[in-house]
């Protein structure tokens, strides 16, 4: 069963209410053949880590437009590590200043997708880099 779909959690941590991007991506990845778990707005890092664990996803995609990424993203990656999910690929999308990239990567983020990224780019990246579990 090597050709099974990759399972991706799309989550929106923090308090901003802008989920259009996350929904467009969730739907786009569905059309690219991914199984996408969408959990909606205003997720705490705790909720995201629990969902990632229970769903046993291959990828966690975080969409943030509030500017709180430097607080929220490391909290998520830390919780994932604590729960033994350090093999999950974490990607961030949204408005992320270039200067914050290195710190986020150091915290365990594999890739950052800014404005203008296409669905196909994200899909290609995930297919190449996510490690499907069996």
């Amino acid at each position, binding site marked *: 069963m090597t050709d099974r*779909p990759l399972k991706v959690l799309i989550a929106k941590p923090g308090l901003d209410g802008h989920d259009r991007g996350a929904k467009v991506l969730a739907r786009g990845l569905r059309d690219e053949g991914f199984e*996408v*778990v969408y959990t909606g707005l205003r997720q705490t890092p705790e909720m995201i880590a629990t969902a990632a664990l229970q769903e046993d996803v291959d990828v966690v995609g975080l969409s943030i437009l509030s500017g709180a990424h430097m607080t929220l993203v490391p909290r998520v990656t830390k919780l994932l590590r604590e729960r033994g999910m350090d093999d999950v690929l974490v990607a961030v999308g949204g408005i992320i200043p270039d200067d914050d990239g290195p710190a986020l990567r150091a915290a365990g983020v594999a890739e950052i997708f800014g404005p203008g990224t296409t669905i196909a780019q994200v899909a290609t990246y995930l297919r190449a880099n996510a490690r499907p579990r069996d």
Partner: protein
Amino acid sequence: MADAAAQAVELAEAAVAGDRRALARLLTAVENRTPVAEAAMRRLYPTAGQAHLVGVTGPPGSGKSTLVAALIAEVRRAGRTVAVVAVDPSSPITGGALLGDRVRMQAYAADDGVFIRSMAARGHAGGLASTSTAAAAVLDASGFDLILLETVGTGQSEVEVAAAADTTVVLEAPEMGDEVQAIKAGLLEVADLVVVNKGDKPGAQRTAAQLRAMLVATASRDADPARPRPKRPEILITTASTGEGVPELLAALDRHRAVGREGVSAAARLARAEAQVWAIVTDRLRDRLHDEAHREATTATLGEVADHRLDPYAAADRLLATFATEAAP
């Protein structure tokens, strides 16, 4: 294979001991129908059968996820543990899926007594994934008191969940149809409980009254007991978004379970066993027809059907005949 068996035992023991990560990984193995899943099932199946399996089904948008969330809250108040298997459809075109049932079930991130797992139907018709019953058995063996199987949004005839569950709840929204809809064969016939959700909307009382009149009052009482009969469901009204009517629903579920345990359910358990084994048989047949040794012949036969050179029945017989002459794998 020895590796798979060892890994399966390790995961199964950990899952039973309460390791949620191991449980989640085991469910992935079940979904992907790996050798690990089979070995784990050999270990876990004998200890499953303790949980109350409740199917929740109904049309898209009738409030299944919201009702499941409200039930989780009620079950936790009663001090019991609960697991959810929530199925959403897979795209017939790309194989992808959008699993959105967790959106309404967020509040339990820190609660170890709640476990929620989304599943894509992966091409299986009937309202569940082909592996949903096996997933429920793993959760059962892992010690959850109540397991809620939420189907994809269903129409009139996706009755599979009734074979998978001890108790089947069919949701209706107010004003969804007239009395004739209520006496059509199919989904409503397999309901143990019919829940008119969105009870705060106009028409809920009338819809419940119509269902009661058609499903309960008109059911014949003096039919030959040896003949299979449609159920006489209990009709309830809930407003899942506020929790109104949900304590009554949990009480009704408990009542139904108590009755089921005393008798009748032997037939139901046999039906569940058949559904479960049958799903595996069809999966395995399909897998073998597409494996290395058979792919070419299968594609050729299907091609003949597509071109109308062979009829579908003859094609099925031919494909089955291949296996009759071969030894088991």
